């Protein structure tokens, strides 16, 4: 089968009974399947989540118990009975990490959920509202955004005192302004799509448009961002704890553990008491990051193609 002579008229063999149907689009894509990096992230995140949930029950010692009450010495090296050594007050580092996991992850998760609840409701609300309401909400939000987060956190905590609810509300509201910006932008983008206009022409109310037309399309990018925002909140809570304004002693959380045990670096002793909580923070944030990257490489790409 060669039509090397350009003057030649080539006709493919055909069967009159065959009809030429409209050619289909690309076959439907399958759901999300994690890559290797995604699996690593999931493993790390699930591990820490499990530690947070059951850690306090399986920890070898109590949160403030001394593993070696007879031989008190700060910053003991790892040995049998204390696999990660002891800290500045000779408490078991491993047990404190297991107790701290629940607190660090619990506070961060609650704060991020609060940020999302407030931010998404107000952000999508602003997107579907008229220009005046939107303008007012956005300018107030801009004012919030212009304040440095750590400073704002410091001022609030210093003013009302530190407790876990205060931490959650403070971090939640600080990050709500970022979520507001994002969900408003996503909402605006979807608002101008023809299918939203079609719903308006049909006479649908605002509630239907938000819940049935906008939310299903905004969900994916917002969920992706949720993971990313959680990392920022973990780092924020840890920073506050490091500065002494977060979780208060003798309760353990990873940020405050790093701060309490800084002495090990200055005065000598087992630096594992500093490195272990720092590594815990790092591995959790990296793990979540891997999941977010993997999901957005799949879902985000598909979304942008459809939009």
């Amino acid at each position, binding site marked *: 089968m060669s039509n090397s002579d350009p003057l030649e*008229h080539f006709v493919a063999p055909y069967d009159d009974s065959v009809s030429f149907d409209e050619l289909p689009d690309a076959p439907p894509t399958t759901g999300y399947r994690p890559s290797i990096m995604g699996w690593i992230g999931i493993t790390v995140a699930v591990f820490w989540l499990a530690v947070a949930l059951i850690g306090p029950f399986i920890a070898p010692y109590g949160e403030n118990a001394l593993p070696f009450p007879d031989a008190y010495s700060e910053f003991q090296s790892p040995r049998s009975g204390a696999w990660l050594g002891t800290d500045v007050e000779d408490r078991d580092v491993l047990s404190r990490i297991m107790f701290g996991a629940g607190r660090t992850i619990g506070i961060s998760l609650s704060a991020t959920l609060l940020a999302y609840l407030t931010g998404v409701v107000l952000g999508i609300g602003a997107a579907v509202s008229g220009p005046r309401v939107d303008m007012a909400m956005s300018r107030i939000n801009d004012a919030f955004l212009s304040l440095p987060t750590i400073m704002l956190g410091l001022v609030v905590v210093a003013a009302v005192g530190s407790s876990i609810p205060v931490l959650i509300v403070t971090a939640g509201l600080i990050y709500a302004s970022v979520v507001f910006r994002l969900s408003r932008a996503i909402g605006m983008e979807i608002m101008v799509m023809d299918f939203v206009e079609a719903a308006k022409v049909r006479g649908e109310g605002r509630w239907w448009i938000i819940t049935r037309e906008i939310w299903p*399309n905004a969900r994916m990018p917002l969920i992706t961002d949720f993971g990313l925002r959680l990392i920022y909140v973990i780092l924020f809570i840890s920073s506050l704890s490091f500065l002494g304004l977060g979780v208060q002693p003798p309760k353990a959380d990873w940020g405050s553990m790093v701060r309490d045990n800084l002495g090990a670096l200055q005065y000598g002793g087992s630096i594992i008491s500093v490195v272990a909580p720092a590594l815990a923070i790092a591995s959790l944030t990296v793990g979540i990051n891997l999941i977010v990257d993997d999901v957005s490489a799949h879902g985000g790409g598909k979304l942008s193609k459809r939009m």
Partner: protein
Amino acid sequence: MPKDTQANDVIFEAKDLVISAESEDGSELQIVKSVNFQVKRGEVVALIGESGSGKTTISLSALGYCKPGLKFAGGQAILLGEDVTGKTTDELRPARGENVAYLAQSAAATFNPSIRINEQVTEAPVLHGTKTQAEANAKALELYKALELPDPENIGSRYPHQVSGGQLQRLMAAMALCGDPDLLVLDEPTTALDVTTQIEVLKAFKSVIQDQGAAAIYVTHDLAVVAQIADHIVVLYNGEVKEAGPVDTIINAPAHPYTKRLMAAIRPLPEAGQGEISSDEHLRDDAALEVSNIDAGYGTGSGGKPNVMVLRDINVAIERGKTVGIIGESGCGKSTLARVMAGLLPACDGEIRLDGQVLHPQLEKRTREQLRKVQFVYQMAETALNPHQRIRDILGRPVEFYRGLKGAKKRARVEELLRLVELPTQFADRFPHELSGGQKQRVNLARALAAEPEVVLCDEVTSALDTIVGANVIDLLTRLQKETGVSFVFISHDLSTVASFADEIVVLYAGRVAEQGETDKVLTPPFHPYTRLLVSSVPEPRIGWLEGAIQSQEAQAGIAGAVELTDVGCPFFARCPQSVAGKCDLVAPPRMRVGTGHTIECHLEPGALM
């Protein structure tokens, strides 16, 4: 690579070329199945087929490029004697700048909006070191002149947004030709353009390809365009060559049934007297939807009047069970008129009546029953259907919303609607992205019909579709109208589609009605000069049509300008070959009755418009 000066040498050859896609489960799917063809110097070879036929994929193989997810799986793509299928990007880089050039469909997306045009046109040869900046500038100037661009000396110093769409398309050709390529790959370069603009671009492409002695691969789904520009045609379906040969053989004596179908899908303009003559029994005086003296525009200026007035004094009556076609180039206010009817853009003056009742100009103030009776169908089914709703929910919602049907009754109605638009009922459980473009457009129509409307506003519903798929949708609309008695307002820039389908035509120019009347009467003289320009710009699948069309007085004048809204005089003044200075540019043209229900807005006597 040496450039052979022999006249008959082969620039590009596809030899048993196979390109396959790897699906997610690891199996291979052949997108291009053993394709053979040649492109010789000075020749234009057209690849023609509908979307999904593999025509773009094949054309890109000339650049040694495969879209992500695709790979060369067999055969050869020989560019100037060398097989490019196995080469790396680094090896291909010199050839891509010097031997092959690619022209994408959208010039607007090709140009960087913040860099001056000349810099972008001359970038490739200067970067490849084949020309100095001065040589490239000289070449660019030569091309601007050859492409008949206005003010060739200075057009290069403008930014892309400062030239018209047709000019930008020609500038893209200049960009491609600046490096003296041996082969040009043009991917649907005129598909997105108005017919009037398409003529100017086709003409420029044709002469410049001949003058530069380049060869070209021209990818399109439009046989009428191909007849004007190609020397050879390769007809593709589902990745296979169905028919190939010289242009006159394919156009005048197509042998393969698929080629015959492609030809049949082109709707010629009805000749005088051939249009459907409406019988008296249909001539009832009850308009389903009537707009009178409508003025509308965008923005809010002083006194509550819009900043930019788009529509002025529009009067249209849509009779029950009839179709009114609205035509004009982009920027003439066609979609604006549909949006006014739907209530999306409240008119600032005038009245809209539905069944004799005055409709509120604003959507929010209309009753649910009024909303139900007027439905809107969008041009792009891709964006008009919510990607996260199943077809069942997309069609089910209006059924429930307007008719209150639930459960089994709703499900039955959805299936009935799918059958009505000739789709299998299993599609109810699919998402929009699991359907082809034509199927999505059918769902889009079914959603409007779900409301059991009296009037359906169709905004360019076939413009984004291939010729065959578009023709099928028109057949469907015709059938639906017979079965349900619905009225259509059919907006399109494609006169031949409108003419084949509409009972009445409204020709809009710059927001004013230029001509209005029964299809038959509008398409026969006397013509408004703008109607004449549109009629003469519709490409015919006939070799040599382009040469004839560009000689005509209308085309010469029409190419001169773009649509501009004016406050005084006739907006068509600058482009009209028959304009009278001192009158047409100063006084708004009067509305002349030239026959029953046939009006032309022009200063000239009907005799002068024959």
